[in-house]
């Protein structure tokens, strides 16, 4: 039984080592980036991880951080696994991270209740719990630039436009193929509501997580049901498989619309030449023409300080990672302004995120003109509902196929409020908001 003692001793050693690590230098702030470069979702996760860390590294290299404060960034591999995600969160908490970006709806759901207790803001950029955009209920959770429900309403709005008006949707059949997990289920309540309102039929095709790469049976059903449009909520290995299967059954690709997370270059490429016309929602520009990307090339990628292949810079998911990093860095800058401190804490970061206003002038100033539609997060609205557009795959790259348009906010907002109420009720006693709205 003595090895018990030994293990306990080894643990005690590891503990002291662990306690010695989180030392913060005076002029730096620590941000942990939970990422996944392994596992079935790595195909999407790698580009996101590269985009996030490249942009932050670029700020360090080019400007020496934000207002002279260096950003200490560290990746934590989650593998999109909730167990590892919680471990990363605990580590991030121990090291005093400014903000936590779960990059998984499952992990987001786990950390939401902890955020207000541990005083760590959760930034779930256009994923996670849609209801979290209600800042009154979720003061510590942010999901800019828009929620899944905004996205789902946007898809229906776009389909309505294609058909010549939302009233023409009656009697249509819209297929919904989704990853059967928290992520893919999130938009269902809204889609069901809209289906009732506009009289279209929604047919669901759930794809179980471990069957992502084998969707033959789902698409066989699609071929039988012949939906007028297909909407997809997929991620990781699910996307390329779906695009490939869709081309295989010769589904008309211009009627196949994915959520913004189904918009990777690799996802569309999997379908070969027939994938041309495949569409996804988008809220950021694709391409590396903007000045900030030149700086990323110059200071990080070409300098050999990144894991990114030069060809990937400017791809859709890479840019999504850049956007996530930009939201963080802007929030830090705003928090510095609001609090007057340079080395901010995670509580200051919350204030920064709550006042996250990014207008065209600001985008111009940071070298990302027109990168996203202007964003305005407020105390009440934590998603800062902006505009989206439709990207179309032209066989080689994503091209902008529509103007920027708004989601159906009038339909989404009441649902968001009632969902937040429901969350509160099922997680009673949910703490009331005690943080003042610092504007």
């Amino acid at each position, binding site marked *: 039984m003595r090895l018990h003692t030994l293990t306990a001793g080894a643990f005690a050693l*590891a503990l002291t080592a*662990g306690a010695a690590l989180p030392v913060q230098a005076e002029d730096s702030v620590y941000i942990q980036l939970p990422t996944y*470069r392994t596992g079935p979702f790595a195909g999407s996760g790698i580009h996101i991880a590269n985009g996030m860390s490249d942009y932050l590294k670029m700020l360090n290299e080019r400007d020496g951080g934000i207002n002279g404060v260096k950003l200490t960034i560290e990746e934590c591999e989650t593998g999109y696994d909730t167990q590892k995600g919680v471990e990363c969160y605990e580590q991030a908490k121990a090291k005093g991270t400014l903000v936590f970006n779960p990059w998984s709806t499952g992990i987001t759901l786990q950390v939401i209740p902890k955020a207000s207790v541990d005083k760590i803001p959760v930034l779930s950029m256009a994923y996670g719990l849609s209801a979290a955009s209600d800042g009154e209920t979720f003061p510590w959770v942010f999901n800019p630039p828009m929620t899944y429900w905004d996205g789902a309403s946007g898809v229906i709005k776009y389909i309505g436009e294609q058909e010549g008006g939302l009233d023409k949707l009656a009697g249509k059949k819209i297929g919904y193929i989704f990853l059967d997990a928290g992520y893919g289920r999130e938009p269902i309540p809204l889609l069901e509501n809209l289906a009732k309102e506009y009289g279209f039929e929604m047919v669901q095709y759930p794809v179980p997580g471990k069957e992502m790469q084998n969707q033959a049976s789902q698409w066989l059903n699609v071929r039988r049901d012949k939906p007028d449009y297909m909407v997809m909520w997929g991620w990781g290995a699910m996307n390329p498989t779906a695009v490939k299967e869709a081309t295989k059954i010769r589904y008309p690709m211009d009627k196949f619309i994915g959520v913004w997370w189904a918009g990777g270059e690799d996802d569309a490429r999997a379908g070969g030449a027939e994938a041309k016309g495949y569409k996804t929602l988008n809220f950021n520009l694709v391409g590396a023409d903007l000045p900030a990307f030149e700086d990323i090339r110059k200071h990080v990628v070409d300098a050999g300080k990144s894991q990114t292949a030069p060809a990937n810079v400017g791809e859709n998911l890479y840019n999504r990672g850049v956007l996530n990093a930009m939201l963080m860095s802007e929030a830090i800058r705003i928090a510095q302004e609001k609090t007057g401190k340079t080395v901010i804490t995670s509580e200051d970061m919350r204030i920064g995120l709550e006042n996250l206003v990014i207008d065209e002038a600001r985008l111009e100033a940071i070298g990302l003109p027109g990168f996203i539609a202007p964003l305005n997060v407020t105390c009440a609205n934590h998603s800062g509902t902006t505009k989206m557009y439709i990207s179309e795959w032209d066989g080689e790259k994503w091209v902008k196929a529509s103007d920027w348009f708004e989601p159906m906010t009038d339909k989404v907002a009441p649902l968001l409020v009632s969902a937040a109420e429901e969350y509160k009720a099922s997680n009673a006693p949910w703490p009331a908001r005690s943080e003042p709205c610092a504007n």
Partner: protein
Amino acid sequence: MLYRESGQYKTSYIADQAIFPIREDRIGMAIIGLVALAIPFFASDFFLNAIMTPFLILSLAAIGLNILTGYAGQLSLGTGAFMGVGAYSCYKLTSIFPDVNIIILVMISGLFSAGIGVMFGLPSLRIKGLYLAVTTLAAQFFLEWCFIRIPWLYNYNASGAIEVPERRGFGDIILTGPSASAMTQYFVVLAIVVVVTLAVKNIVRGRIGRQWMMIRDMDIAAELMGVRPLTAKLSAFAVSSYLSGVAGAMFIFFYLGAAEPSAFSITLSFQILFMVILGGLGSLVGSFFGAAFIWGLPIVLRAGFPALGLNVGAEVIFHIAQMVVGALIIFFLITEPHGLARLWQIGKEKLRVWPFPYA
């Protein structure tokens, strides 16, 4: 010299049948107990929350699988799902009876898991070995399907996830939920694991446990000697699933805080199986070794590489941990099927004659 039982005479049957008949072992256990009680007062929240609590919970799950595979010889790949049964029943119980102490509900939720385990254990009366593994695999997939497809289980939550509500007990101490302190949760888990492990230790070394081992070593001989395979095998399934269920409920309520069905996937089953194989089939202490090793290795690697001054990417560490575990499993299966527990035993035997190896 240090570890020698010569001179310790047993003068009663009770002394002879004690769990720890050797004085040095009792001293060792007392030290471990003291360390376990003292850790929370010195350790950081990270150490308690992310290392100790899950380590203890997974040890219990490994003991559960070890009962079935190590002691009764029935290979199972359904541990993850049985843990899920415990977690979901505990969630439903606490939704229906919010005022009952959560610890009681955790202990009760194991019973549901035991029931389901017995049901899926029935085929073991006719089939053995790999074929049985396939039926438990079926249990894994079927139960996971239930967790996704039966909305009643997760109270019709839109995300399909279960979220742990705040529960208090023992005079208003917060036991679960985000506001619960790491120390409280550690002590609750520690208490449950210690009590259950002691109970299991006594089952294992008594009549029931010996029946399991007889079935494992040669079922026909066991049957001829009067062991009923039906009760022996099904009781092994029941006890094993009970432990898995309790571990699963604790995993959600005292560690994860919320879970999607994918938390109880086949990956978890394999994780527990690796713990049992590495730790040692048919050994309780081995379950603790295995859990500590599999859970601790990635964390140690992640802290270790930067401490050595090596700048290694997060995903490389992940890969290294997987490779090390894989290589070790092959190594142990070839050279030491009884795992770390056997190494520990050899160490103890060496220690008995130390420093005179030929004495």
